[in-house]
């Protein structure tokens, strides 16, 4: 019962070339679905006119306020009727993925079957926020598809002024750099904010992201309102066998130019074995019978570089946990923001540790809900009110790790200096 295809000379061009073609995929779906024949018709029109033709609207599932991205066509003929009527509605369901985006084939096939039945058959793995995006569904079918997906144990993600779907890196599951249990932290945190995900009522969106170490494979520093990034407090670990193996393969030039010279703080030095320092803050490992790497961990800022290059030979310490940064976002209104460090370190080993993380998130979100302007992200809010006001609002103490440098201007009202100093001294003596 194949519907006749529209001409798609532009899209056809995208079937050539070696990279997997989404057009070929769309055409394959169109073989069985008139819906997708018309979708191709509208997309080809966009390629011709260089215009988009979707508009939003309101579609949701029973019981939730968000999670569906509604799309209605604006490509109309002279009578105001959709030019490609079968594809007049093309909604997306955002489904939260498992942490680390692990699947077995069984569950993936189930998704395919449901989406073939009720939707377009087009699935994006994944959206930039991490959602399984089931793309292309009529208003009528949204609830049907959702009902079947929900019972698989999956839930809708965020959209609108809500807590959003989150991502965590592969981390502890397969990565030696992992500094905490990312999937568990991810799941516990997000599952404590389901109401804020499903019933959008915040000033604007709020994103959590989870990276297991400062390599930040989740780009969390720039794309999360609250970024949880693994790090460690004690000395780096070393493994002499792996260090020697690395050196044997790469040699002195690479050791000097690619490792030692690239340390941002010169914390890592090449030493002759006989000259190596001992001390509480020193990690040292021989790379040959004569030479040694010596790291002064007090100077190390945990950038990861040397560990990346010499994986296993150098490794994060044992006292692991995470740093928290707040306020990352893209460009709207004031320009891109990186997250700002507000917690240099917290342990994330136990359920209680994770409970503290959830509490911090809650405090932050409450403050955000009460203090942000409409359509203002956390980063913009902090920019407006100042970091100190934010810290006071959520009850955190200041720490010099929070700044790249102290203020360079005198424009501050500081009647309370003595009082602050007294507080600090009292705490130090306590």
């Amino acid at each position, binding site marked *: 019962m194949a519907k006749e295809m529209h001409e798609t000379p532009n899209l056809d061009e995208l079937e050539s070339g070696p*990279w997997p073609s989404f057009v070929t995929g769309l055409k394959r*779906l169109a073989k069985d679905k008139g819906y997708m024949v018309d979708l191709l018709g509208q997309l080809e029109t*966009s390629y011709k006119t260089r215009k988009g033709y979707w508009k939003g609207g309101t579609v949701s599932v029973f019981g939730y306020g968000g999670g*569906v991205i509604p799309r209605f066509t604006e490509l109309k003929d002279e009578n105001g009727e959709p030019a490609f009527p079968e594809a007049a509605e093309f909604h997306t369901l955002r489904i939260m993925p498992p942490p680390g985006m692990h699947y077995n*084939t069984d569950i993936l096939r189930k998704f395919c079957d449901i989406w073939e039945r009720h939707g377009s058959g087009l699935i994006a793995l994944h959206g*930039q926020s991490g959602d399984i995006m089931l793309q292309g569904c009529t208003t009528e079918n949204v609830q049907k598809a959702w009902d079947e997906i929900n019972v698989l144990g999956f839930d809708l993600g965020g959209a609108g002024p809500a807590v959003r779907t989150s991502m965590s890196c592969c981390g502890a*599951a397969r990565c030696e750099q*992992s500094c905490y249990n990312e999937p568990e932290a991810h799941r516990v945190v997000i599952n404590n904010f389901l109401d804020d995900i499903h019933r959008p009522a915040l000033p604007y969106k709020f994103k959590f992201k989870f990276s297991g170490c400062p390599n930040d494979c989740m780009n969390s520093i720039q794309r999360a309102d609250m970024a949880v990034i693994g790090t460690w407090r004690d000395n780096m670990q070393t493994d002499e066998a792996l260090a020697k193996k690395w050196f044997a393969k790469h040699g002195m030039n690479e050791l000097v130019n690619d490792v030692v010279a690239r340390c941002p703080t010169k914390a890592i030095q090449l030493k002759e074995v006989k000259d190596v320092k001992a001390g509480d803050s020193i990690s040292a490992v021989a790379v040959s019978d004569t030479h040694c790497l010596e790291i002064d961990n007090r100077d190390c800022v945990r950038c990861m570089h040397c560990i990346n290059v010499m994986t296993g030979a150098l490794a994060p310490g044992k006292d692991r946990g995470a740093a928290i940064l707040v306020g990352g976002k893209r460009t709207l209104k004031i320009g891109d923001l990186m997250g700002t460090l507000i917690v240099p370190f917290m342990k994330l080993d136990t359920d209680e540790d994770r409970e503290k993380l959830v509490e911090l998130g809650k405090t932050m979100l409450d403050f955000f809900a009460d203090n942000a302007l409409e359509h203002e992200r956390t980063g913009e809010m902090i920019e407006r009110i100042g970091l100190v006001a934010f810290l006071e609002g959520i009850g955190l103490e200041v720490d010099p790790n929070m700044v790249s440098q102290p203020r360079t201007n005198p424009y501050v009202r500081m009647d309370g200096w003595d009082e602050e100093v007294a507080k600090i001294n009292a705490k130090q003596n306590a």
Partner: protein
Amino acid sequence: MSQAQAATPRRPIECGVPDAKQYMHPTLVKNFGNWKYHDRPRPGVLHHVSHSGEEVWTVRAGTQRQMDVYTIRKLCDIADQFAEGHVRFTIRSNIEYIVADEKKVAPLIEALEKSGFPVGGTGNSITMVAHTQGWLHCDIPGTDASGVVKSMMDQLYEEFKREEMPNRVHISTSCCEINCGGQADIAVIIQHTKPPVINHDLVANVCERPAVVARCPVAAIRPALVNGKPSLEVDEKKCVCCGACFPPCPPMQINDPEHSKLAIWVGGKNANARGKPTFMKMVAAGLPNNPPRWPEVNEVVGRILHTYKADARPWERMADWIERIGWPRFFEKTGLPFTKYLIDDWRGARANLNASTHIRF
């Protein structure tokens, strides 16, 4: 609110994020948190060794992200036949097959490549481009996303399969200035060059006017009466054509087939490795929005990558490389013109000016 409802609506089970362990490869579950080191036996393959002595091999392959169910089922078939039935996806829409037996690696690679999925994207390769919606689905796009990415990855195909770049290369594309694709070593983003064209008949019905006024970063919008109806007016001298007014007010049409151009940005870095994370910088603009293959964009991206590949030292990301050679040399070597538009004049612009006599001759 029009609810898509079944006869008796079902209350949702608010189950949230599922436990990942049920889907994880069993060797990963067993060695969870206990990995020791990894290496890369060949491009596209990671080899992780656990403190327990167990090992896994990960084979990474590229996908088109926006996949039809047939493609997904084929990927599943391959997993079932060659790879123990488990997969995972990366943040860049690459698929990863994890196997506990080295002997499975070669046949798996063969099966993937035969089915059209290139194996690569690891280490210092050019991995898959981060991907947004575009004309296929978004309500505000100035261009397509899947199409730009397909044409780009066709061109970068060999670099995906090799590990020959100085360090990993992360690219993103975005179909409007919002840039859901994010900071990257190279980003391709729409840059509008004309103020929005307002359909005044619709504003009153469709737009919450105070919200739209508040959305403009340069306060160029003011409420106005047009033909007796409440509408909005743009001070075109002030307007920076960012399109921020368009999502909350679709009658403020910002997209234009001719004047919505593409700009290229370089040197974004989210990792803390070596220097602190850096924002990307605009280095080229005015490129035509030219479907279906955007050759002008691809030419510039190719040129930048080529120069980087030839000139950067090992482990230098795009940002590190440019920091070493300096911006004057970057423009010289890539042959890109340095126009006045590239000099910052936004808030905090001062920090981007050269407040020193550090000069390159």
